């Protein structure tokens, strides 16, 4: 069974987690073009590679970020999201 390391609860089986998709920064809806907004809403970077992703540890209600290679399924790092969401709000 595949194990994901939760920063709060330690190593847990991946079946306890829900995949939340790629971590993306939202363009400013007041200033971006309709085209850019549609791109943000629908399009994804679908190719294989290392991505930052949202994962939700359901039993403990914890959202985390995992850096994972979507080609090899190797997880490089997991951490709580506050570090990058803080960064994002300053962008």
């Amino acid at each position, binding site marked *: 069974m595949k194990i994901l390391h939760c920063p709060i609860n330690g190593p847990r089986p991946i079946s306890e987690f*829900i995949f939340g998709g*790629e971590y993306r920064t939202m363009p400013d809806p007041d200033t971006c073009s309709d*085209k850019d907004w*549609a791109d943000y809403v*629908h*399009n*994804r*970077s*679908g*190719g294989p590679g290392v991505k930052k992703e949202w994962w939700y540890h359901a039993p403990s209600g914890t959202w985390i970020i995992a850096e994972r290679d979507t080609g090899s399924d190797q997880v490089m790092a997991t951490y709580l999201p506050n570090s990058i969401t803080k960064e994002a709000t300053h962008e």
Partner: protein
Amino acid sequence: MPLRLLKYAFSKEHPDPAFFTQPDSLKHSYDAVIIGGGGHGLAAAYYLAKDHGITNVAVLEKGYLGGGNTGRNTTIVRSNYLTPEGVKFYDTSVRLFQELSEDLNLNLFYSTRGHFTLAHTESAMRTMRWRAEVNKHVGVESYVVGPDDILKACPQIDISCGGNAPILGALYHAPGSIARHDAVAWGYARGAYQRGVDIFQSTEVWDIKTSGGKVVGLNTSRGFIATNKVLSAVAGFTPRITDMLGIRTPIVIQPLQACVTEPMKPWLDTILVSGSLHVYVSQSSRGELVMGASLDPYELHSTRSTLDFVEGLSGHILDMFPFLSNVKVVRQWAGMADMTPDFAPIMGKTPIEGFYLDAGWGTWGFKATPVSGKTMAETIAKDQAPELIHSFRLSRFEDYELTGEKGAASVGH
């Protein structure tokens, strides 16, 4: 005796029937190049030649024909979708499938079984009624049936599903069928080859060259080809191709797994699908139960299979058929499903002139092999997509005009 056998081995008198011969090398240029030798790419080549007389065409396949999702799918063919656009489109495909063995002069083992989508909840029953009405409106034979009708078609089923999820009714779809998947790919390949199309296996496309927003050629593992028209029909590899051109799409890849049991005497002659239990099952002409479940839960570009999958699937199949508890699963595998947010495909023209996309086939594209081949061939020949696939264009995501098929597509492939 053994000597006589040996004579046959060396004799050229009875050669292997070859479906096509691969040319030694690529031509310098083609009128159109198709990336992907799955059912879709080969069907497009066939109809380009047959319907439009365009035969200076190459199909490039990096592995072997049908080795992608075509040869990994559970071959359910049906048209009981949710949107009128979807129902019309898939109905056209079912009709093409019904004539296809004759058209290709190859026995595709096309077998009309009838298809039950089981409902275990009132809300599922509501979706079944909705689909039945849309289907009827478009002229497709689907109607809602009760537990008695299900038991009549399949007396072996435990209608209470072990008391866990009693079956309240089903959407019955008379034309639901199964077929031999690799035969479909090979039949189209032979038909295209006979009309002059070049087919190359073990030939990978590395890069697509453009100039001024137009396609001018491709780099492949066998060298450069000049061409102004390229069709990408690569299912689970689509993002890698669209990345070559900087085209953005909503496609995300998730594995979809399936398995078969050891062969049994024939006992199941319909196709059964349960969205609530996440399973579907049919019995192949060899007697194996062909079974599948829903998508793997996260993005992954891999065809690895998992124990989680067989464990979960077996549990649900046993809810429906407790008597299968001693039957062995003999093979399991996975394909890479190219998923879209509205569970509808992405077909037609793209922002790059001469680059055509046939993708977003996720867990449901085998049934569309004939119609997608036909409509993509027309799109390439006329540089304009026919009305039938207008709702599947890539630009629908920019226009917020999605074609919501999730209620008819998830699990019931």
